[in-house]
């Protein structure tokens, strides 16, 4: 996690310096625009984080491992798809959790559908998505991605 941030930060820094050398006025204008956009979405982002913090309190790791672990079958697959679709868990928490699930005997299909719905479908973030994309597009995107995640889960179960 820290390493990734460091690399991303380093790359951003290099881009910024090159941009500044090429045209400092343009760069400052760009930074101002970026700052304005960041400020305008800061509170919706923070509200989402607060909401997810509450949701995850009611769905702790231990519960997830219990229901998605060994012999969870199609019920486990369904629960994984539903929990994954509702919540949004950052990679540095969800990947260790997925590795734990595999160790506990969860199938690859369950783990794959859990991870893909976590990344691709977001019911908690839907209100924000609607603000950007409009109701129709946001809902369609989530539905299509949900179907795709199910397909990915099933195929991963077959091929792993």
């Amino acid at each position, binding site marked *: 996690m820290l390493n990734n941030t460091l690399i991303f930060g380093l790359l951003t820094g290099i881009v910024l310096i090159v941009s500044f050398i090429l045209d400092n006025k343009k760069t400052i204008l760009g930074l101002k625009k*970026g*700052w304005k956009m960041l400020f305008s979405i800061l509170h919706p982002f923070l509200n989402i984080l607060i909401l997810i*913090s509450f949701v995850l309190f009611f769905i702790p790791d231990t519960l997830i491992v219990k229901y998605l672990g060994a012999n969870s079958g199609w019920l486990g697959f369904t629960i994984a798809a539903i929990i994954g679709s509702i919540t949004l868990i950052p990679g540095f*928490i969800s990947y260790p959790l997925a590795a734990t699930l595999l160790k506990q005997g969860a199938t690859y299909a369950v783990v794959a559908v859990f991870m893909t719905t976590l990344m691709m479908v977001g019911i908690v973030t839907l209100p924000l998505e609607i603000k950007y994309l409009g109701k129709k597009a946001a809902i369609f995107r989530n539905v*299509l991605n949900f179907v795709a995640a199910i*397909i*990915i889960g099933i195929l991963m179960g077959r091929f792993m």
Partner: protein
Amino acid sequence: MNKHLKNYAWVILFIIFSIGSYFIGFKPGVVIYSNFNQFFIEMISFIPLLFVLIGLFDVWFPKEMIEKHIGKESGVKGIFLVILLAMLQAGPLYGAFPVAYILYKKGASVKNIFIYLGAFSSMKIPMLGIEMGYLGIKFTILRTLISLPLFILIGYIMEKVVGKDFEVKEVKA
């Protein structure tokens, strides 16, 4: 001032709730705060960087250029370019919506915007690195290979479904 206060009402309430929980020893409150803290660290470590890049992208790349390369007539090359762009980024999906706005404003096609969102959701290079570490190379590569054609298909379907009246709005404070 009043507007800002209203925007941050939930944040302020949450801070009061967290401090209160800490002082009276309300355990669920403390756990919820520690959840929030983890997410907040993730957000604050990449979001400002992302917006530096979005701002620079906005001033450096003129509309005509973006339209030509990832617009309506861009074909396979356009698809390839948006996937590459998405793979080079970091952070959770909600960070991609402002980028989608910029791409839309600059004339990217509906299809390419949704392919971008798909690739952003689960093909970012920093994330693939973590995935390989925890779930193995085979899992990561297989998942990516299965996902990619589905994302492209979703792009085409989205263009059919919402294409005509689609717009990405700027979210303002």
